[in-house]
């Protein structure tokens, strides 16, 4: 019996090549996308599970609530909570603090920058990492030793054993020898902790005993059966007792009035947490939203492919009707027929499934670049994966097959065998399904267009300064005279127009204005060349100047937003009081607002000082001429190596690093447009199939119309009109939804495009064009056919 079904299924597939192609192509694309997302999600939720007793491992989080009710959540703490809580709470088995860091390491004459983690020696008693050389028990005990990964070992020592060898690491501004006390295997790719180089914490000279300080991860391992909720309450009382003195002091000195609450976050939650993110040494922070969005897209693709199957199968049922009637007449009952049609759906799904596995292997590299992953079927291959893929196959076969099976098996043989058969039940459903498909397609096209326009807008936005031909060179901290020499040396080259030193990095602080008003702002230490080099215009007052020697100790510049925030009518001459360091500066000029941060944020108050006592310079912005850039770069490098021999040479083109800030948007732009293309493709091949069937069904009608004198154009428009109506209907559903979603999405961007009618018009015209193109082949074919032929076959 099964053999008979299979035979029929396969012969049907071969016999109707167009439909088999439409169904298999659609389903395999849908399935392949789902498979990729299963891999992606599986990787996401597998993060950090490889540690032994991982359910006992928690991270201490800090939640700061300010008097005005603002809540800030940090996944980080200072140095104090770890050892203090461990000493007072027996439920805590052990703790480890870890902080991201980077060191300059000498390799021959080169200086390399090395990512590293500062950790307590208890690191390996909590986390499980395999060693190639050395032992986790002894590895971090000696403060003058480090643990490195096998990749880092190879980078510095080649393929030979690294154990016991020394690395010359710049620590506290001098190169010191550190012994390699252990070499770990490459960290698993689904680990939030990536070991490059582990530096023991207990080298720190000055012990930081501040509670109100947040910069490192504190991880604790609880005793089995310890109750984390109860512990959090105990944290609160310990903090209240231990930090009492500091809190009083902070209130006097900084007007610090916030409360801090320590919490416990399961270490397994870290990777996907959006409140307490994986940062400060923990890598690969993610957002479950990515999984949800990708999953949604993949499921939609699969559903759309299943819709093709349902629609085409039901639309072809007039042809299948005869077979169904015969089978019933010769003794087949309905159950057997349902079984047969489900079987056909499963055969088709199986073919699509096998093809999908092949597609997954083929497209994984592309997907990995898109999703920033290193997924492979091999690495995630396990029973769970097989069963989820198998479920996916069953789901597809069932989803595609169930409705047609029920409909087809219900046909009465008297109706189907005596040509009285008119199938109308399906047409409303068929239309709704097509509308659903095209609504999705319209929505996705709209999403793509909005993403593209917003991205373009951000990338091309005038930042308020000139980032073209600007090379940022990281120099390490320089004294004033070192800075001066470096500047002069660079300016020797006629290809270098201007050089402006900066503090580098982004810093914030608070000060008082108008006597008591506190104001929080970004601060940067620059000199008089900063504004001219970046071509930032002044609005009022003057720039820093060599002619005013007191500028370095007394003057500051502020931006327009700062003035607004301070509420100044006449900003020049106003005073800014840095109360924590007891220093007051005078505003000498106001600069026009410019985007010193990314466009993800609105412009915040900024203050520029040229006081070298606030911070030394650590970066040079070098404006170069656009001609012969390579030789200018070589010159900069040569000068750098001469003047900064102990520093690694790192430079960036400002416009490129600005672009990089929108990498995330660029990725999503690609993912969304890929999915849009696939959704449109699958919907269109489905539509093509329906158009083919509808033209077939109406062959006689078309023949009669032609005999009566209808032109080919009239026939084409008649055949196209019905489908265009559906497209119109889908736009009615999709556009309001797309409008709402796009606005919701754009709310995340303070600088954003307006959704305007041209976007809707573009999508609409495109959609209509695509539809006409899809249908026109069939419509033309039947319009141009010889009516004598089509009528004779009746």
């Amino acid at each position, binding site marked *: *019996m099964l053999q*008979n079904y299979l*035979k*029929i299924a396969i*012969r*049907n597939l071969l*016999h109707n090549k167009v439909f088999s192609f439409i169904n298999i192509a659609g389903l395999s694309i849908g399935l392949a996308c789902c498979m990729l997302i299963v891999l992606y999600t599986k990787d996401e939720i597998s993060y950090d599970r490889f540690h032994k007793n991982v359910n006992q491992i928690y991270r201490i989080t800090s939640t700061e609530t300010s008097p005005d009710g603002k809540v800030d959540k940090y996944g980080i703490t200072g140095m104090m909570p770890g050892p203090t809580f461990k000493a007072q709470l027996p439920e805590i088995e052990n703790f480890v603090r870890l902080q991201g860091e980077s060191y300059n390491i000498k390799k021959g004459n080169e200086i390399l920058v090395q990512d590293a983690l500062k950790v307590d020696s208890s690191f390996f008693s909590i986390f499980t990492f395999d060693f190639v050389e050395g032992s986790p028990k002894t590895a971090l005990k000696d403060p003058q030793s480090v643990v490195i990964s096998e990749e880092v070992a190879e980078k510095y020592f080649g393929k030979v054993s690294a154990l016991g060898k020394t690395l010359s690491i710049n620590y506290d501004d001098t190169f010191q020898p550190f012994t390699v006390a252990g070499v770990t295997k490459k960290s698993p790719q689904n680990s939030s902790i990536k070991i490059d180089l582990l530096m023991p914490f207990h080298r720190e000279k000055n012990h930081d005993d501040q509670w109100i300080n947040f910069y490192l991860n504190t991880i604790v391992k609880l005793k089995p059966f310890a109750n984390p909720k109860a512990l959090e309450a105990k944290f609160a009382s310990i903090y209240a007792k231990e930090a009492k003195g500091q809190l009083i002091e902070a209130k006097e000195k900084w007007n610090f009035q916030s409360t801090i609450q320590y919490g416990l976050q399961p270490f397994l939650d870290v990777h996907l947490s959006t409140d307490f993110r994986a940062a400060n040494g923990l890598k690969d922070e993610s957002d479950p939203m990515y999984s949800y969005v990708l999953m949604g897209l993949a499921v939609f693709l699969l559903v759309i492919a299943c819709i093709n199957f349902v629609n085409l199968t039901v639309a072809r049922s007039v042809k299948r009707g*005869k*077979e169904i*009637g*015969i*089978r019933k*007449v*010769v*003794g*087949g*009952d309905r159950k*057997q027929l349902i079984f047969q049609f489900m079987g056909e759906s499963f055969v088709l799904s199986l073919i699509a499934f096998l093809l999908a596995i092949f597609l997954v292997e083929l497209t994984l590299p592309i997907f990995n670049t898109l999703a920033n992953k290193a997924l492979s079927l091999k690495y995630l291959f396990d029973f769970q994966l097989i069963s989820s893929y198998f479920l996916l196959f069953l789901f597809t076969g069932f989803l595609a097959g169930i409705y047609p099976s029920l409909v087809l098996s219900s046909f*009465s*043989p*008297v109706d189907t*065998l*005596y040509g009285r058969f008119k199938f109308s039940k399906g047409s409303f459903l068929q239309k709704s399904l097509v509308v659903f498909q095209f609504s999705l397609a319209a929505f996705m096209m709209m999403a793509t267009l909005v993403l593209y326009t917003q991205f373009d807008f951000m990338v091309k936005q005038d930042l308020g300064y000139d980032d073209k031909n600007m090379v940022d060179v990281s120099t390490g901290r320089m004294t004033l005279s070192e800075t001066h020499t470096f500047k002069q040396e660079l300016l020797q080259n006629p290809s270098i127009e201007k050089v402006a030193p900066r503090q580098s990095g982004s810093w914030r602080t608070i000060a008082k204005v108008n006597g008591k008003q506190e104001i929080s702002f970004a601060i940067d230490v620059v000199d008089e060349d900063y504004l001219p080099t970046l071509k930032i215009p002044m609005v009022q007052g003057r720039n820093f100047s060599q002619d005013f020697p007191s500028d370095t100790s007394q003057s500051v510049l502020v931006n327009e937003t700062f003035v607004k925030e301070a509420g100044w009518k006449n900003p020049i001459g106003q005073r800014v009081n840095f109360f924590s360091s007891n220093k007051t500066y005078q505003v000498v000029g106001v600069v026009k607002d410019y985007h010193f941060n990314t466009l993800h944020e609105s412009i915040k108050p900024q203050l520029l000082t040229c006081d070298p006592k606030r911070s030394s310079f650590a970066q040079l912005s070098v404006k170069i001429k656009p001609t012969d850039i390579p030789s200018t770069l070589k010159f900069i490098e040569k000068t750098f190596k001469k003047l900064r021999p102990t520093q690694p040479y790192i430079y960036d083109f400002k416009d490129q690093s600005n672009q990089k800030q929108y990498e995330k948007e660029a990725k999503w732009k690609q993912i969304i447009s890929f999915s849009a293309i696939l959704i449109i493709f699958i919907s269109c091949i489905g539509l093509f199939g329906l158009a083919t069937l509808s033209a077939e069904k109406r062959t006689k009608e078309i023949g009669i119309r032609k005999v009566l004198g209808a032109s080919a154009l009239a026939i084409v428009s008649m055949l196209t009109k019905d489908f265009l109506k559906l497209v119109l209907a889908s736009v009615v559903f999709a556009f309001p939804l797309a409008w709402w979603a796009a606005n919701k999405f754009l709310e995340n961007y303070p600088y954003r495009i307006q959704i305007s009618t041209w976007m809707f018009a573009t999508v609409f015209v495109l959609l209509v064009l695509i539809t006409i193109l899809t249908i026109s082949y069939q419509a033309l074919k039947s319009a141009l056919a010889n009516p004598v032929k089509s009528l004779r076959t009746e």
Partner: protein
Amino acid sequence: MLELKNIFRWYNSGVNRAFVLRDVSLNIEQGEFVSIMGPSGSGKSTLLHILGMMDEPNEGEYSFLGENVLKIKEKQRAELYKKHIGFVFQAYHLIDELTVYENIETPLLYHGIGSSERKSMVADILDRFNIVGKKDLFPNQLSGGQQQLVGIARAIITKPNLILADEPTGNLNSKQGQEIMELFKTLNDEGVTIIQVTHSEKNATYGSRVIELLDGRIER
């Protein structure tokens, strides 16, 4: 063998009832060869469908081999039908995607007959109808007469004791038609009851009895 009592069959069209069969009563014995005749629209096919349990009357009684067809459960009725009735159509109605062999084999599959037994049964029939050489051809590769032979082969392979034939020679030329009628005659001689719907007086002469329908009533 079967008995119809006061059968009515109508369709509702608007407020009116369009009667297809009116008060049809009829008794057919085992081994009869009955021809149902009448002009188009007289209800011949509907009567045949009711006899073949493919359609149900709105009123009346139908007993088949002592079973009250209209009262028993759907499943039992399907069993009864499967076991005793074979259908032959004017348009042959073979499954286009299956070969001659497979078409004939299909009812056996639904009867749950084992593979080796199926093989020998199909081989017997092919042999008997002289179509062994055609067994791997598809229906569209056969002439009308050959297709109808396959249709009959498919109908009798399960050894039914009643064959219902709806204008079996309607699409055939007279020579092919004659052959098919001869075949029915032979089957009837072997004890199979045959009820055929036909327009042709000539075909009716092969039968033992003629029932004439006019406007849904039995005239004779």
